[in-house]
């Protein structure tokens, strides 16, 4: 079987998986629970809470309303993207759904390599997550353009990179878990748990700085936190630079720390490059684990399948 033919199969299987995810309204809605919760929280009280918090820090200075709007808006959309890249990745996987619906048996009796099928699940998962993330980014950019836009090109590139690497991280992590189950209950449970919890532990619902010291140390061990801070930097660096025109450097630094655009690891400040390296290396390690798991499963299967009395 040629590589070209296998690549074509991969292409179609990936496209099928993406289509199935977007056609399954229930799965689609569940994966968007976290951004929807955030949006509701933002409309109900987060916007005013953070505005008040910002105004209390900048008391005595006349901070432009556009900057305040851009800051709260940037904080919202950095939270939305930080959570969505993980929750959508967890909830858009077709691997287990295929196992439940027995489509996986249909693929087992079709001339397609298991590795091609597995890769199609990962790619579809990744692309579905990226599609949603970029739609959310577009909404965020339109919103910021309406209320106050201070993003530079570098900020924009940082956001794009963080979307891609966080989605990849979430996708591989989800697929590692899905490799071990064929139960709808496990999928629903994990999706609900991730959707509900991830917003808290990555600092999306409230700044990490407001958490207790122990919790702060704990979340600094999770790679997802590093991507959240990268999103914060992408969305808020421009606004913080704009604030520097009105506010003293120390005050801007205090805002940056309070709202998670700076991160410390057991007291040491983590640079942007280090943030990027942590999430990138974590993704590479997870990819290695995923490949190992699949090759182990494949070897285990072929060893038990081989019989001494076979003709060929």
């Amino acid at each position, binding site marked *: *079987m040629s590589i070209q*033919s296998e690549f*074509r*199969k991969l292409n*179609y*299987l990936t*496209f*099928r998986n993406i*289509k*199935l995810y977007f*056609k*399954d309204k229930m799965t689609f809605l569940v994966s968007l629970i976290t951004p929807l919760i955030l949006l509701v929280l933002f409309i109900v009280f987060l916007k005013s809470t953070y505005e008040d918090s910002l105004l209390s820090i900048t008391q005595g200075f006349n901070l432009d309303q556009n900057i305040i709007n851009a800051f709260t808006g940037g904080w919202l959309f950095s939270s939305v993207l930080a959570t969505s890249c993980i929750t959508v990745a967890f909830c858009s996987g077709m691997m287990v759904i295929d196992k439940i*619906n*027995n*489509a996986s*048996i*249909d*693929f*087992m*009796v*079709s*001339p*397609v*390599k298991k590795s091609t099928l597995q890769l199609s699940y990962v790619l579809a998962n990744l692309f579905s997550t990226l599609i949603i993330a970029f739609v959310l980014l577009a909404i965020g950019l339109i919103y910021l353009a309406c209320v106050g836009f201070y993003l530079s090109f570098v900020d924009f590139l940082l956001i794009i990179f963080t979307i891609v690497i966080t989605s990849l991280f979430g996708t591989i992590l989800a697929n590692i878990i899905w490799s071990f189950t064929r139960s709808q209950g496990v999928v629903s449970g994990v999706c609900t748990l991730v959707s509900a919890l991830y917003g808290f532990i990555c600092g999306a619902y409230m700044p990490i700085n407001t958490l207790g010291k122990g919790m702060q140390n704990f979340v600094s061990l999770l790679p997802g936190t590093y991507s959240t801070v990268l999103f914060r930097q992408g969305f808020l660096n421009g606004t913080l630079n704009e604030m520097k025109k009105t506010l003293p450097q120390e005050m801007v630094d205090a805002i940056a720390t309070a709202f998670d655009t700076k991160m410390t690891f057991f007291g040491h400040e983590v640079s942007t490059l280090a943030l990027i390296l942590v999430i990138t290396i974590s993704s590479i390690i997870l990819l290695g684990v995923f490949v190992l798991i699949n090759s182990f499963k494949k070897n285990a*299967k072929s060893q*038990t*399948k*081989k*019989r001494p*009395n*076979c*003709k*060929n």
Partner: protein
Amino acid sequence: MNIIEIKNLKKYFGNTKAVDDISFSVKEGELFAFLGLNGAGKSTTINILVGVLKRDSGDCFVNNLSVDEISKILPHIGIVFQSSVLDKNLSVYDNLRYRAMLYGMNKKEFEINLEYFLDKLDLRQILKKQLDKLSGGQKRKVDVVRALLHKPKILILDEPTTGLDPKTRKLVWDMINEFRKTTNLTVLLTTHYMEEASVADNVVIIDGGKIVAEGSPLELKNKFANDFIKAYKYSKDIFTILNKANIPYQKNKNCLQIKFKNTNAAKNFLVENTSLFEDIEIVKGSMDDVFLTVTGKKLKENV
């Protein structure tokens, strides 16, 4: 030429002997029926043939290739499962297209192959419909098209017409038969319907993982089923003869059914007692009788 050969196949699940040392072969182009109750070992055998299950021992060859080389075998096989395994949220067209691409078909080849089935199975108007919006019969037709779209050499039908109305069942079989005529397709069938098994070229009956009978339906009926004389107009003196000779019979509303071991016994009885009968027919035993004789179980009770 044998297209499927199974030799001393064994598959145990713990202490359960799902398939216990069975051997049989299927000739190219024939309709081969695999009969057995639920749990007899039919599906296990099929799953081993298509690489879904591993065998414990024995040899399986499909198209002269061992099932260890399953990737070379699968392009030549089409399967209709007991229940649909297609994507219920996708349209009929998308389902068929995505599956066809797995066999290396490009869009043009797919469209040409699909066209063959559209009118034959009345699929044109449901092509854009989502699969879960279709009736059971329509879904089954799509399953059959999915299995035949890549023009396989072997079609495996795992109880394909269960739950279908007689009209759709006939439609599905007409299409499979036409495909068999034009492409020399081999069909391996598992079924609960005796009328489907009775038109097969060869039948294997499996019970408790072992083959208990095999041969053509005629051979099986001759060997394992009784013959009957059905008398519609007859003299009442016949009862005296039957009772005296201890020949089993059953008197129904419309006819008298007299049971004989074989056709010769029935023929001899008729010759000896011609004057007692006015309107009769000699009927061969059914596959149900064969099944009952070889397994001691009634097939329909288990369905």
